[in-house]
């Protein structure tokens, strides 16, 4: 799905990035709608607003490169190459979902595209990504692993443990911190002392800060770091400054007690990664607004069809309940 290791300098690449961001937004709008219309079991965490992060990074990866994702993971999943149909089926707990309905939004995994899965334990995948990088190094593939996590997750001690080992062993892992300013209902400033980049640098890890609303800036930086990681120059840390448009989860509607409507409006009107990239594409003569509109409507048709498909799809058979507890073993 994502293009292999060539520089994204041409229109095709740009348009694919645009489309992928639109796809994430379309997916999330529908997921939110499913929740609001009480068709989705449980809760889910919207990625809207952060699209440039997932797309900018995943477009710098091959299909065999690994990522680990978070509770806010739909964006990573789409960007790494997943299909709408299996994703919506998973969100609704249907048998055709990526995890046969057993995982749901917070555990969606797509190993066919190297997505080792969302994780409902904040910070829980930091070791997993690092281990995937160790595996790649030991087995002699040149795959890279990207560990997505939020600014709030930097408070988990696990991160420091695995950064230390990644640095000692020169592992091809990139720690990508999506700094959207909030941990649930608390400004991360209030619960994070010092500097995030300094925390990585203290372990001898090269750290970068990039505008997470600028898909090209994210992609350029990631391409460089991925190439260097493949050569054994890793690990790296990237802080990507971004914003989530929705509440912490779909049910977090009244949020003025922790975040002002003005702040939200400002990010949406001035810093939207899709709108701004679209403008740039038109300004640069790479695309026309008509073409971009066409992308949008294609994606929306696709998404609507996938939702309809998923709604009609069957639940897993009840006999599946105690399947997949243990993998079969030869011995």
């Amino acid at each position, binding site marked *: 799905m994502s293009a292999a290791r060539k520089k994204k300098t041409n229109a095709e690449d740009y348009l694919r990035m645009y489309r992928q961001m639109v796809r994430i937004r379309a997916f999330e709008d529908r997921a939110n709608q499913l929740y609001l219309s009480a068709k989705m*079991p*449980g*809760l889910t965490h919207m990625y809207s607003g952060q699209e440039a992060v997932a797309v900018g990074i995943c477009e710098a990866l091959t299909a065999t490169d690994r990522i680990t994702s978070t509770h806010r993971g739909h964006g990573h999943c789409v960007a790494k190459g997943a299909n709408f149909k299996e994703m919506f089926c998973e969100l609704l*707990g*249907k048998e055709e979902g990526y*995890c*046969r*309905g*057993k*995982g*749901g939004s*917070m*555990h969606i995994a797509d190993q066919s595209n190297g997505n080792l899965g969302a*994780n*409902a*334990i*904040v*910070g*829980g995948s930091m070791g997993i990504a690092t281990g995937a990088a160790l595996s790649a190094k030991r087995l002699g593939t040149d795959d890279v692993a990207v560990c997505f996590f939020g600014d*709030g*997750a930097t*408070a*988990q*001690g696990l991160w420091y443990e695995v950064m230390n080992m990644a640095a000692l062993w020169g592992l091809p892992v990139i720690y990508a911190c999506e700094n959207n300013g909030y*941990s*649930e*209902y*608390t400004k991360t400033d*209030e*619960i*994070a002392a010092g500097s995030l980049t300094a925390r990585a640098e203290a372990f001898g890890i090269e750290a970068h800060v990039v505008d997470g609303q600028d898909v090209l800036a994210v992609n350029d930086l990631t391409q460089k770091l991925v190439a260097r990681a493949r050569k054994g120059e890793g690990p790296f840390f990237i802080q990507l400054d971004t914003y989530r448009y929705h509440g912490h989860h779909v049910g977090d509607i009244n949020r003025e*007690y*922790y975040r002002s409507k003005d702040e939200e409006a400002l990010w949406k009107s001035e810093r939207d990664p899709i709108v701004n990239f679209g403008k740039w594409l038109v300004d640069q003569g790479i695309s026309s607004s008509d073409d971009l509109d066409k992308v949008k409507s294609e994606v929306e048709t696709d998404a609507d069809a996938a939702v309809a498909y998923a709604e009609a799809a069957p*639940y*897993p058979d*009840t006999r*599946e*309940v*105690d399947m997949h*507890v243990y993998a079969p073993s030869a011995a």
Partner: protein
Amino acid sequence: MREITLSKAVNEAIAEEMRRDETIFLLGEDVAEAGTPFKVLSGLVEEFGTERVIDTPISEPGFTGIAVGAALTGSRPIVDLMFGDFLFLIMDQLCNQAAKAYYMSGGKLNVPMVLRTNLGATRRSAAQHSQSLHALVAHIPGLKVALPSSAYEAKGLMKTAIRDNNPVVIFEDKLMYQDKAPVPEEEYLIPFGEANVKRQGKDITLIGTSSMVQVAEAAAEALAKEGIEAEVIDPRTIVPLDEETLLRSVKKTSRAIVIDEGHQSYGITGEIASRLNEKAFYHLDAPVVRMGAMDVPVPFSPALEDLTVPTVEKVTAMARRLVAGEMIHAA
């Protein structure tokens, strides 16, 4: 008597105790302005301020360790652990440190702290947010473990927990936060180690913990219609366990089912059943039957999740068979 929700009962218990004793403070993620995602602690920060209702970073082992240190030095911290599933993150601080300090110091240091957390599935929260892990802490000497089954118990047990001079883990059922029950206006405490006989009966004893008390009561109701008189008992604390009350009942009814929402294997039901078998053996007409949750990670899909926990129907059916003597052939 007035009826209040379990959520309100917990809130009242904590507020009353904090008014009484300055050394009590609360800490955890989003406990202050947000009042926790379940809104159980709403209003406390307004009354007690951010010095006594402390928002922490997402650092479960860290803030649990801090609570242990505070408890060792004159404070009485209440730790809020957002989901019971996060117990896995804090086991070292809870089980290697808090639980053992009094013993290891020969009675010189003690840890008066409360860890409030939750249990319970069928909320479509999937495998990492649905576990009922009380068996794990019940196995560790030095910890006490309370499982309130209604707003009444939630208040009375919480107050006792706060006044206890040992680490107490209290598990609320997250599906019961909005359930109402009569709760007196006057102060009361519920002593640890005293089971509550919720309903008298002579044909069979149904022992339920936490949410399973409701299941047992509903089953007893159904059985009554068939002329089977079930006695329903809520142990309320599993450490200490009120063996006497359980034995008295079982010796009377000569049949028992133990119902619990934790995984059945190596869990609570095995302990209770084997104590009854051991100490009431010659009074039993049939083996004590255990009904725990299935030994599978909790699946997301609604089509599967509901199959994993004991239900009124299953308990009723099993009780019927036991009373009819059918289990004789099963053994």
